[in-house]
């Protein structure tokens, strides 16, 4: 198939490799070496999307990251959809499928544009804020339509099949940008032996050199480039990353580099290859050689397809052998852009005229070359307005005065289909702003340049406003040398490459071309094409009182989102400044933030998805639980058995069976996940006395004790049993979820408050498997597995622990109980866990030893009124609120953590919420956890609430429901009735009682 705009020769293309791609359902040819944008232009595709707010047809404007219009939805299948890809940055591959992001039913005929045309006047800046605020309830409806109309791409509905990687890197010198400045810096850095990373967002290194016709060191730039890249590749310590955008420059010289590994090859990455890679780099020094973006000029209808940046025209012609039109008019404020017209004419198509806004016009080199090519130059003039709807058809030209703020003389029309414009170059200072450095305005550069920074950062070339090739080479070499010296390396001789000097006239500071009508009445003059922000919109924002440029930005959406103000920011600021009668430096600039261009979620997530999203912790007996059909509950990262359903059982039936088995005979729980902290040292006992609320001075070796841990505010935050192994050696248990926090808590007090105490902590949670055997028959089971000790009640008392041998394996057995039944907790080294578990299961067969999970554990402990820290506490209750004053020893000599806090006036006042038991009048009714109690359910809403239910279950053992709940002043209200009005309209009547429902005297655990 014919590519109407493809030149017969030139470009950096593999012309022997024709590839096909699809755009909006139609197939087109292109070459290897094309971007999607260059291939679209080669095929004469004018309209690539509809605009954000007004749905105006839009064409390709730029050739790089600054492209505001050609934003594509890519992907041949649902799973490989990628939204918001700039066609100018996407390399073409065979089979590429692209769709324009907005435009309905299609970009050629767009329904929204009808609304846009009518609605243009009724869609001022702040339109959405002003219109869709009320009523609030309709926002979700509005949002659907706004999203559809807003032209944002869509995410895939299926999982991404590709793999994404993260690399952590360290480098002496990171160089951002591989144009002439970056390559010069890299050469010096590489020759010094430094570890170097040089990254560039484009497919090939070279930057502006890729479409330049100049010479370096007397040879064509293409040859210099080839030699330079080859030399860099020869250094083992140099990592060269093309197709890699440095998207973020973060604190302490941390950079994120988004490398597109295989996006240029196919719709999906090949097997064993990743699609994209995120390099997370800590650099000693950074050289920013990020170049600059050309600024378009702002004039009426400057968004009609056919309006382009001058440099983009040169790039398409020289690099891609694509000429994006037939008849060109070039408007420029500077000499640099003249090459677009020269390239156009030399490619064999017509240049109608060069419109130079400067009265004095260009320097001698440009003027002579134009004359030689027979190109007309019109000085001191500007294009005021463009005609055409789906493509430029002609332009109106008028003379302007010297400052460029008034039209002088008559307007004449020039027929053309392409208008290239250049308002000069804006340094690409984005990365230098990411860590908070404020850029500085330079009148000489006519742009912002990087300001002072704390980062170890150097800059070179166009980012400093030095746009000449000669300067870029010299500055790059200088920055490379400085970086080498800064990292403590050295290099003998450094000679920068040289390019010929060009004689130029100075550029004109012009942003907004005046129009015969007032800005507000003139046809639209776009400042930010991606966000549909117009000059009139910015003027209106300033008239409405938005004085800060940050507010103007937010009100108008200028430079928002994926655009980040690459093309329009300076023009917008200039217009705002003029409207407020200020200078640009007085108005200031907004700050650019990461990311420089959009990054896929895949690259951000890397391998941290699916199974690797979050680590999982398994006990040694996990496989056994799986084989018995256990369902699991996540507690922290742990997978804990929740309950063990049998064939045909409902959850409630399983729980009842498990509970009854424990109370009638015996049950077994995998308690390995409880936090275990080994505490040793001469002052271990003193330390425990300070962090627990109760007394530890007299706990004898061989004994265990339950302890409550409070914060300095007096509120309970963890609990557990601690055993005394030796006079200077204890092992503390914590809640499963609280283990890490408790360890850090102990450490911070030891290290910062009481370093004089000799005590050491270590987490031993994973070292031990804990098998809790509980129930009236538990002793009989333990007897048969223990090799060497007497487990009778006389020899092994409640709250004792013993060192024993269980089936030949050393074990610590604790006689502690969380069920209220006779219990033995057998702790063995974790790698024996499964073996001993199985031995105990075998021994328990005769006693219907039943494995149970966390849910049954919760019911059994609630029957006993035992709290679970984090469920029955919430950081606002102290031990006395819980009715656990027995676990507080106020007489301890040291003012333990929590003592002062729980004696604050607020903590000792009457009327605090206190933990009580709740029995429903109807024994079958189970109050939902979280339900609030009231005294009178008939009182008007909002009712006076007394406190909420923290734990609530049906107790099969007791034959009625049980609950633990907070009730204001509850300890003094035993036997009184309260009501629980529920969201569904039911009201549950209940009586306040002791939270100990089962065996209040504790006889069962003591047998």
């Amino acid at each position, binding site marked *: 198939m014919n590519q109407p705009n493809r030149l017969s020769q030139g470009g950096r293309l593999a012309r022997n490799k024709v590839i096909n791609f699809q755009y909006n359902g139609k197939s087109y040819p292109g070459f290897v070496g094309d971007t999607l944008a260059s291939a679209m232009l080669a095929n004469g595709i004018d309209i690539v999307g509809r605009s954000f707010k007004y749905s105006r047809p839009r064409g390709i404007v730029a050739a790089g990251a600054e492209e505001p219009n050609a934003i594509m939805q890519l992907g041949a299948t649902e799973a490989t959809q990628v939204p918001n890809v700039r066609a100018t940055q996407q390399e073409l591959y065979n089979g590429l499928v692209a769709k324009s992001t907005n435009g309905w039913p299609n970009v050629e005929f767009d329904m929204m544009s009808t609304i846009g045309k009518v609605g243009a006047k009724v869609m001022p800046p702040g339109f959405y804020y002003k219109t869709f605020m009320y009523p609030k309830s309709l926002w979700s409806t509005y949002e659907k339509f706004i999203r559809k109309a807003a032209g944002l791409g869509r995410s895939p509905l299926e999982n991404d099949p590709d793999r994404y990687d993260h690399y952590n890197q360290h480098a002496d010198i990171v160089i951002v940008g591989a144009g002439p400045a970056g390559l010069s810096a890299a050469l010096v850095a590489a020759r010094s032996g430094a570890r170097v990373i040089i990254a560039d967002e484009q497919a090939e290194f070279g930057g502006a050199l890729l479409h330049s016709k100049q010479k370096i060191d007397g040879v064509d730039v293409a040859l210099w480039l080839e030699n330079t890249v080859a030399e860099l590749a020869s250094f083992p310590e140099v990592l060269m990353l093309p197709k890699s955008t440095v998207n973020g420059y*973060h*604190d*302490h*010289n*941390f950079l994120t580099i988004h490398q597109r590994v295989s996006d240029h090859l196919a719709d999906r990455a090949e097997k064993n290859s990743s699609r994209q890679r995120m390099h997370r780099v*800590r650099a000693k020094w950074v050289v920013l050689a990020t170049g600059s973006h050309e600024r378009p000029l702002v004039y009426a209808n400057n968004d009609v397809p056919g309006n382009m940046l001058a440099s983009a025209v040169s790039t398409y012609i020289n690099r891609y052998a694509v000429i994006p039109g037939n008849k060109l008019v070039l408007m420029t404020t500077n000499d640099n852009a003249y090459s677009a017209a020269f390239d156009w004419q030399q490619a064999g198509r017509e240049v109608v005229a060069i419109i130079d806004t400067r009265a004095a016009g260009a320097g001698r080199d440009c003027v002579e070359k134009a004359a030689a090519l027979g190109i007309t130059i019109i000085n001191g003039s500007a294009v005021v307005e463009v005609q055409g709807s789906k493509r430029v058809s002609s332009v109106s030209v008028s003379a302007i005065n010297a400052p460029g703020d008034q039209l002088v003389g008559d307007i004449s029309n020039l027929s053309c289909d392409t208008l290239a414009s250049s308002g000069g170059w804006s340094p690409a200072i984005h990365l230098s702003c990411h*860590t*908070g450095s404020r850029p500085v305005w330079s009148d000489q550069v006519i742009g912002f340049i990087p300001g002072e920074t*704390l980062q170890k950062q150097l800059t070179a070339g166009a980012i400093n406003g030095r746009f000449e090739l000669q300067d870029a080479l010299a500055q790059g070499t200088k920055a490379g040398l400085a970086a080498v010296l800064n990292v403590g390396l050295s290099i003998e001789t450094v000679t920068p490459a040289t390019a010929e000097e060009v004689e130029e006239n100075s550029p004109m500071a012009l942003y907004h071309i005046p129009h015969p009508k007032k800005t507000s009445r003139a046809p639209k003059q776009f400042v930010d094409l991606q966000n549909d922000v117009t000059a009139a919109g910015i003027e209106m924002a300033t008239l409405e009182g938005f004085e800060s440029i940050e507010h103007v930005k937010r009100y108008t959406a200028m430079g928002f989102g994926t655009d980040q103000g690459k093309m329009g920011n300076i023009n917008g600021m200039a217009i705002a400044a003029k409207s407020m009668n200020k200078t640009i430096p007085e108005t200031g600039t907004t700050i650019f933030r990461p990311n420089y261009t959009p990054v896929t979620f895949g690259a951000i997530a890397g391998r941290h998805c699916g199974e690797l999203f979050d680590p999982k912790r398994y006990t040694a007996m996990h496989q056994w639980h799986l084989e018995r059909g256990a369902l699991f509950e996540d507690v922290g990262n742990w997978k804990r058995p929740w309950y063990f359903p049998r064939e045909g059982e409902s959850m409630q039936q399983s729980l009842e069976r498990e509970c009854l088995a424990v109370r009638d005979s015996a049950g077994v729980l995998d308690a390995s996940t409880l936090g275990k902290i080994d505490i040793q040292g001469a002052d271990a006992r003193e330390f425990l006395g300070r962090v627990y609320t109760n007394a530890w001075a007299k706990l004898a070796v061989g004994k265990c004790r339950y302890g409550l841990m409070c914060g*300095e*505010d007096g509120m309970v935050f963890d609990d557990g049993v601690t055993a005394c192994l030796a006079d200077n050696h204890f092992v503390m248990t914590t809640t499963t979820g609280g283990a890490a926090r408790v360890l*850090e808590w102990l*450490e*911070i007090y030891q*290290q*910062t*408050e009481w*370093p004089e105490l000799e005590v050491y902590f270590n987490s031993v949670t994973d070292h031990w498997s804990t098998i809790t055997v509980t129930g009236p028959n538990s002793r009989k089971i333990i007897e048969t597995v223990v090799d060497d000790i007497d487990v009778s009640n006389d020899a092994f008392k409640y709250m004792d622990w013993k060192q024993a041998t269980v089936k030949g394996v050393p074990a610590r057995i604790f006689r502690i109980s969380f069920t209220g039944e006779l219990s033995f907790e057998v702790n063995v080294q974790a790698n024996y866990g499964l073996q001993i578990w199985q031995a105990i299961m075998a021994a328990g067969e005769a006693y219907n030893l039943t494995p149970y999970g966390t849910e049954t554990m919760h019911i059994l402990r609630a029957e006993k009124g035992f709290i679970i820290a984090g469920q029955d506490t919430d950081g606002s209750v102290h031990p006395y609120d819980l009715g656990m004053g027995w676990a507080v020893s106020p007489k301890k000599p040291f*003012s333990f953590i929590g*003592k*002062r*806090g729980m004696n*604050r*006036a607020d903590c000792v006042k009457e009327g605090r919420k206190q933990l009580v038991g709740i029995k429903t009048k109807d024994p079958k009714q189970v109050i939902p956890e979280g339900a609030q109690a009231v005294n009178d359910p008939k009182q008007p809403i909002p009712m006076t609430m007394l406190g909420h239910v923290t734990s609530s279950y049906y107790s099969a053992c007791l034959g009625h429901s049980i609950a633990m709940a907070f009730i204001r002043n509850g300890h003094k209200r035993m036997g009184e009735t309260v009501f629980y009005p529920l969201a569904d309209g039911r009201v549950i009547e209940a009586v306040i009682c002791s939270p100990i429902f089962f065996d209040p005297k504790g006889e069962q655990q003591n047998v």
Partner: protein
Amino acid sequence: MFYIFCPHCEEHREEEEFHAAGQAHIPRPLDPEACSDKEWGEYLFFRDNPRGIHHELWVHAVGCRKFFNITRDTQTYEIKEVYKVGEKPKFTAVSETGADLKSSLKAQESAT
């Protein structure tokens, strides 16, 4: 993301290995019972929120588990220094709550 020098490991490590543990140099009153509710409340809850120099307690959580102090500029995120618990900072600024760090350190010193 910060790059933090652990004074115990004597190495720069990534921020991911550390936890911030709040403002540094807030000693627990030696006699809590002697504190009024207001004084205790200030010890417990009130912290500086300066723009500029700030002394912070950090822990090398997945490294050596040791706590240490950082003097950091909250505006620029520059880490001015790291120093061990019990040592004094070289960079100080007057704190927002009125009492400057020097007098707080002095109080700490005379208390111990």
